[in-house]
């Protein structure tokens, strides 16, 4: 079989697999909802549903940029720590200058700079991505704690707080941001040349390079986007909880990775969608929200997230093996 035919066959397979995967995952979400609705009478209240949507939006924003990184077969373990530092810097700027837009620029800018640094470490210094971003994670955590010195910054202007806790037509603001970035992300990944190049890098970096994809530049791009999205997510958290502390992003990395894997993006690169990550983020949020509603101690959350990650990767490896 020549390569062109192989490619066509593969894309057909990918399409059917895509549809089936989305179907299974939506089914899981529906089942989970049904289960929670029977177990808890609070679950179906408007208040809780809006809360779930807001949480989903937050997780999705963090995870959407990270999805692009994982599509290239990379990993960014620093997103949680990135949220922490970006949030704290943005909070300081808002406090000092009183300007929300300046603070927002700081948050997103800081996130993007961290992402850029990750990209440089991975491409120019050729450090494996999980090690480079793991080192970055600890460095950022250290810097954030040092900078905050145990302090809390709180009380932001109401206009800024709208971003996290405001409503438009009865729907929380973060949900609009989520939908906006879902559209941008999906269009970018599926309909632009850069997006297709990202898939190509993940599927086979050597082949991508040989067919003229500027691999290094695209990698730097995805890490920067991932960082910028973490910066954006940090603003939404900041606006919602109205305070910044050193540990603000600490427990977000594992759920974000879990959401992506549950959403069907392969850890081995080249396969997955941004829309899938939204389903995954919804699933993860429902699990964590459900545990809260059922009054399960929050200490169980890292344990459950860890189990979900292992299960999702195991399914991923199995489907890959069948695919081959």
């Amino acid at each position, binding site marked *: 079989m020549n390569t062109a035919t192989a490619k066509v066959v593969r894309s057909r397979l990918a399409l059917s697999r895509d549809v089936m995967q989305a179907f299974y995952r939506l089914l899981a979400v529906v089942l989970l909802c049904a289960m929670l609705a029977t177990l808890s009478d609070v679950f179906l209240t408007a208040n809780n549903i809006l809360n779930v949507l807001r949480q989903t939006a937050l997780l999705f924003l963090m995870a959407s940029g990270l999805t692009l990184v994982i599509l290239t077969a990379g990993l960014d373990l620093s997103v949680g720590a990135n949220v922490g530092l970006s949030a704290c810097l943005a909070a300081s700027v808002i406090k000092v200058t009183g300007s929300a837009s300046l603070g927002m620029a700081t948050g997103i800018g800081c996130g993007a700079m961290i992402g850029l640094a990750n990209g440089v470490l991975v491409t120019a210094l050729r450090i494996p991505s999980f090690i480079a971003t793991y080192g970055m994670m*600890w*460095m950022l955590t250290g*810097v*954030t704690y*040092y900078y905050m010195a145990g302090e809390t910054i709180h009380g932001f202007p109401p206009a800024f707080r709208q971003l996290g806790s405001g409503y438009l037509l009865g729907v929380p603001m973060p949900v609009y941001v989520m939908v906006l970035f879902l559209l941008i992300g999906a269009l970018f990944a599926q309909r632009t040349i850069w997006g297709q190049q990202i898939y190509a890098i993940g599927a086979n970096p050597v082949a991508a390079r040989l067919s003229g994809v500027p691999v290094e530049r695209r990698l730097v791009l995805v890490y920067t986007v991932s960082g910028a999205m973490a910066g954006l997510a940090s603003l939404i958290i900041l606006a919602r909880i109205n305070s910044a502390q050193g540990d603000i992003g600490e427990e977000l990395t*594992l759920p974000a990775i879990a959401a992506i894997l549950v959403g069907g993006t392969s850890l081995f690169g080249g396969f997955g969608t941004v829309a899938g990550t939204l389903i995954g983020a919804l699933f993860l949020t429902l699990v964590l929200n459900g545990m809260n509603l059922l009054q399960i101690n929050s200490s169980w*959350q890292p*344990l459950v997230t860890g189990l979900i*990650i292992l299960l999702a990767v195991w399914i991923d490896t199995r489907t890959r093996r069948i695919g081959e």
Partner: protein
Amino acid sequence: MLVVLCAVFGTTSPGFATSANIANILTQSTILLLLALPMTVIIMTEGLDLSIGAVLTFASIVLAITVVTTGSPMLAFLAALAVGLCFGLGNGVLIAAFDIPPFITTLGTLGIAQGLSLVVTDGQSVVGIPRSIENIYSGTAAGIPLPIIIAALAYSVTHALLYHTRFGTYVFALGGNREALKVAGISVRGMLIRVYVFGGLMAGFAALLMTARLNSAHPTAGIGMEFDAIASIAVGGTSFERGNGWLLGTLLGVIAVGVLRNGLNLLAVPSSAQVACIGALVIIALFIDGLRAER
């Protein structure tokens, strides 16, 4: 690098070059060494164990709870080893039999071990450790602190395993030439499982020392230890991609990280900034490693 660090702190801090402080650094580095040794072996197989700090924590908690409830240090130590064994086996089976990449497997088990620690203790410290356990860290034999003797033993055993047994030869092959190992009819899966079990067991040993040192067990005590271990290995010159390791380098790396932490402590640098410094150290070390690889 170690020499540079020593020189810098020797000149900037008067308390650094005293013999008491040097003994202090060595004793404090022993727990880290117990984690870094198996981590070196794991990284040589092109693997990684991010869960080792969380497993250490959980083993320490189980040890403390067992000794407090039963009063038997031996039983408690065995319980800690059993925890290490279970997690090591779990990691190994997931990686070898289910083909899940090591860093994601151990990221998942990190979450599990951390969660278990929090659930079991409800976020509180476990206190009331008997003196018999405490003495393991503070005691001496023939004038040498016990932890140093334990660490020296652990180093010798790992060295012997790696350089003088068939197991060691296979470990080198796992990282360097996995196909050859398969062709030679060696079970790659069995080898990988053994490597991760070794990591878990050493975390169990380290839990004994850590509990003895802190005289308590706390659900966040060992968090981030895996990072110090990885940092030591990176500084020690073991490569993360090509599977060639250097055990003596790890020993030096552990001491370098110990010196760095100690020196920064003496200069009254807060521990948060220390973490940032170690992060920078890792990236510099990996950068140098990358340069060497290109040559």
